[in-house]
């Protein structure tokens, strides 16, 4: 099907795309001596996982990964619950003023994070939440809600209204039809939005950098940055190993859910 030029283009594309990652993994297995004395393309002489151990302890990658999960998972769960409920109330239910509320929430998609950082910093400082992970969780929830609500409303729009109407005819209350009919019907949408929110939360740097005040609180992104600042010019191997470990987590998720991830991230951009 594809001619020779097309094949060359594809080959080039694969090299550009895969080689940096391959180089990353291969270098992460080299000792400092080996890194300094062998050319970049050489493969590691032995599989030495010392770098990984160093990154885990010295670079606190273990702590960072744990913090990232402690922040990301509750944030995404709350975003989905609140966003799906709000989307349902705005799309399926009938009341005056719902268009206005939807518009106000939509406006939030356009707002750059920089607009909320300083007041939130003040609020968290005043109520004494600095030095905990709460500022991150709360900010991510509020920040993720506009897009989630909007996308969930769109998913509920594609469900035939008659389903909800017949539900109420059968005597189910609204909450009942949301939980037992609405949510199961949009579960694909929920998964898609969950992935979109997972990656935007896990990969955030700006909000994390603003609200994290101590090293013990670092998420993966901030942790890597600190690691580079502290040891980056000495511990080459462990830094590579640290990058590898943070990449590995996303790789595993990606291997299983790549189709939904592509759909979710691209869909979120198109509709937002």
């Amino acid at each position, binding site marked *: 099907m594809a001619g020779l030029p097309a094949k060359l283009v594809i080959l080039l594309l694969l090299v550009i*795309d895969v080689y940096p990652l391959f180089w990353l993994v291969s270098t992460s297995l080299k000792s400092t001596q080996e890194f300094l004395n062998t050319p970049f393309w050489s493969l590691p002489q032995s599989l030495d996982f010392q770098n990984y151990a160093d990154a885990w302890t010295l670079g606190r990658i273990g702590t960072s990964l744990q913090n990232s999960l402690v922040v990301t998972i509750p944030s995404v769960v709350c975003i989905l619950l*609140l966003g799906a409920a709000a989307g349902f109330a705005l799309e399926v239910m009938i009341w005056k003023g719902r268009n206005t509320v939807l518009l106000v*929430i939509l406006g939030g998609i356009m707002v750059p994070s*920089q607009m909320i950082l300083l007041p939130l910093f003040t609020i968290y400082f005043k109520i004494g939440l600095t030095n905990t992970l709460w500022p991150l969780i*709360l900010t991510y929830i509020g920040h993720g809600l506009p897009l989630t609500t909007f996308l969930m409303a769109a998913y509920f729009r594609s469900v035939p209204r008659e389903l909800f109407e017949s539900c109420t005819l059968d005597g189910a209350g609204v909450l009942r039809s949301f939980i037992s009919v609405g949510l199961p019907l949009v579960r694909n949408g929920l998964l898609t939005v969950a992935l979109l929110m997972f990656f935007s939360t896990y990969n955030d740097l700006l909000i994390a950098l603003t609200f994290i005040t101590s090293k013990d609180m670092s998420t993966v992104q901030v942790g*890597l940055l600190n690691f580079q600042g502290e040891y980056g010019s000495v511990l080459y191997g462990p830094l590579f190993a640290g990058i590898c470990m943070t990449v590995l987590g996303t790789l595993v998720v990606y291997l299983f859910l790549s189709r939904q991830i592509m759909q979710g991230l691209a869909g979120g951009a198109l509709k937002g």
Partner: protein
Amino acid sequence: MNQVLGDRRAILILLGPALLMYSAVMVIPVVWSFGYALFRGNLIEGFTFVGLANFGRLVQDEQVAAAVRFTLLYTLVISTGQIVLGYSLALLYTFVLRRSSSLIRTLVFFPVVLPSVAVGLLFSRLFAVAPNSGPVVSVLDRLGVAPFDFFAAAGTAFWVIILMDLWRSMGFYGVLLYSGLIDIPTEILEAARIDGARGWRLVRSVVLPLSLPVLVSSIIFSLNASLKVFDTIVALTNGGPGSETTPITLLMFQTSFFYSSFGYGSSMAILISVMCFMVTIFIFRSSRRDLTVGGAA
């Protein structure tokens, strides 16, 4: 029935929590930021009302001007690159690889999900010259280019940033635009082919106009994301050398948290919002004009 679907208590239970969180984290802080922009000071020293002085300073500040210039240049180059590369990828997926494009699509998309700091650090090593030459310097050395530090000059550092962000995001725009291209009905393409349209002509006269809506969405998304660039540049150059690769977002962060000027920082945040807003409106309006012209013709 409408009484059930209009049940006020249920609306409150379903919408209340989301609205509460949204107001607390987004609405109130945004309004508050506009207030902060009228003050000078920070949490420790307290605030003094200065009216519009922060905006006056913003207009005259050479650092702000440089950061805005850098941001606009970056946005222009990266968005052009993202759309052109993304569209080329989408064409490759749709017309060359067709049904077998799934694997390539998946591979090229992968960098999108990587932590941006990890990508930034990876590229700083790929282009490193010390302590030993990274792949790029080594290959250039072989080709007869004497080793030099990419991050020592603003020009070369800028291009490394562009290459990194293209590497990271091209798969994303490929998939985004691909979703627009596969929606084009095959009958139309067949008809155009029968009429003798091939290759570039087919793309320009048939595919491009038919994928215009998704193209416009992609351009708006790309411009907005680029104007807000932060993570990758912080990890790769941290604004250096000097402050030559400092985007306005990074300057806002430094002003607010390193120099503790909350008021001045807020006025920069407003500037960022205005830039994003204006670009979106501009693209939206000019594209609508294009669409109506195309529709009439």
